[in-house]
């Protein structure tokens, strides 16, 4: 659906240094995938979306979006993608109905009226269709803006920070709407710096800060960065048990935190029974056994910390 090759955007500023916003980005996103593009402010996420939606031209590199080459078939790309821009930019004085109608017409939707009605009904806004958009709650406005991007049934949807600036309730509203879109099998490219959101909504995550740092499912990212870890809660820990456990094949690392043991291994499914047997034989009282799940946040902090933006000399 999206394939980029060394996609690069460098902003030229009249005075001062050039700003490398996106450098040599290589992505391959499949149909039906929800891809989370994760990075701090100024990482170049919006710039990437703007390039992929033909709003700005890359400095170097190429990309295919929905099968069309960027730069050569921009009109086709625009017809096939939908975009929720960072600032939704609705016409606030106009009604919800008018806003959607304008866009349905600009996207050459066949049956404008019924398509607009379908989307307003989906949002439960049909009764309020004649109210100006400015009178809607922030969450509603955001959902309306997402619907505006869906009117022409695009094959690919870009969402630029769909929940940023929303209060928790509004964010939840938008998030469950995205979940719904996901369950419909839509292809979505979503920028965010909300990690829980990315973890919950996205099939794969790209960690990005000017350069692409890692791409994988959040589960694989956890394994890649922290390995798999098992936590065993004991009534009390006898230091003599540690060397015994360390001797078991497959144990990579053991540490003790209060009355808990944290064991790193690649294969907890086969190792856990042996560990428990060893502990019980040694006289330990096992209370709980669980897998330690690192939050995406920890991965994020670790990668972003190592990848401070480059300072370019002018």
């Amino acid at each position: 659906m999206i394939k980029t090759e060394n996609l690069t955007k460098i902003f030229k500023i009249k005075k001062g240094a050039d700003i490398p916003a996106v450098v040599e980005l290589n992505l391959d996103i499949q149909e039906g995938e929800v891809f989370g593009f994760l990075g701090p402010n100024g990482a170049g996420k919006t710039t990437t979306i703007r390039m992929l939606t033909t709003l700005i031209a890359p400095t170097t590199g190429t990309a295919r979006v929905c099968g069309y080459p960027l730069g050569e078939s921009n009109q086709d790309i625009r017809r096939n993608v939908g975009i929720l821009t960072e600032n939704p930019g609705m016409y606030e004085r106009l009604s919800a109905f008018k806003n959607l109608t304008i866009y349905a017409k600009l996207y050459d939707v066949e049956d404008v009226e019924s398509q607009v009605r379908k989307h307003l009904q989906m949002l439960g806004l049909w009764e309020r269709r004649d109210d100006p958009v400015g009178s809607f709650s922030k969450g509603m406005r955001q959902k309306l803006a997402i619907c505006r991007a869906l009117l022409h049934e695009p094959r690919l949807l870009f969402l630029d920070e769909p929940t940023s600036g929303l209060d928790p309730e509004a964010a939840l509203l938008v998030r469950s709407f995205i979940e719904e879109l996901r369950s419909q099998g839509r292809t979505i490219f979503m920028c965010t710096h909300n990690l829980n959101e990315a973890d919950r909504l996205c099939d794969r995550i790209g960690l990005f800060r000017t350069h692409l740092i890692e791409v994988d499912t959040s589960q694989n990212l956890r394994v890649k960065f922290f390995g798999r870890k098992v936590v065993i809660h004991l009534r009390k820990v006898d230091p003599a048990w540690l060397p015994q456990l360390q001797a078991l094949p497959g144990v990579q690392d053991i540490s003790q935190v209060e009355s808990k043991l944290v064991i790193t291994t690649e294969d907890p499914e086969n190792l856990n029974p042996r560990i428990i047997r060893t502990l019980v034989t040694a006289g330990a009282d096992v209370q709980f056994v669980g897998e330690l799940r690192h939050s995406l946040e920890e991965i994020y902090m670790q990668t972003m910390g190592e990848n401070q933006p480059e300072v370019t000399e002018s």
Partner: protein
Amino acid sequence: MKHIWTIIDKEWAEVFQHKMVLFTMIFIPLFLVALPVLMLFFTGQSMGGEIADDFSELPPALLSFCAADMTPGDCMQVYLINMFMLLFMMIPVIIPVTIAAYSVVGEKTTRSLEPLLATPISTFELLAGKSLAAAIPAILAGWVSFGLFLIALPLIGVSAPVIRYIISPTWLLAVLVAGPLMAIAAVNFSLFVSSRVNDPRVAEQISVLLIVPVLAALLAQLAGVIVINLLVMLSFIGGLVLVDIGLIYLGVSIFQRETILTRWK
């Protein structure tokens, strides 16, 4: 091409939400019609007694306007009316400027330009829609004002020869052709400015400068430096056509979607 109509429809829906814009659109033409009508009314009354039937009391500059069947009073009125011709041509320049000046930079400040540019609309369609949205009401306002003027004249006792003078080719060309051409020039100039600045207020201020050449022409005419006749009007129209073509071409070729979207200083 139907995108053009969508843009016009959208612009009008937005513009007519602003009470101020509606007010200017109605007030300015009414004012510019009322002004000459009142002046003609009062000169007609006062001249009845004073200059009576004596052509010799008229200044020579005035005599050139007299047709054979006119009284000296008529000549005086025709002279005055000619001064107002430029006023009528100003209507289509003043009205669209605020709309057009706001149109690109306004969408940029409300951030609605980005999703708009992401649709499959072409630059030409976007600019044509925005130009027409501003030009059409301006041209109509110019024509309606002239219509009101023509209706008002007999009511205040202006004589038939004077009215015949006003529906002469020069006047009709001025109102029906030069006015719209001026509106198109004004709109495209304002759009051009609007695509280049980042603040709607700056766009309006620069665009309002357009009135300066029209005012200059008005003053020149008052001072007797230029006399508007058919030939002057035709050459003026010719010049306007060239200016319009130039401005439209410039507007479309200079409208860089990316630059407009990303330049903030």
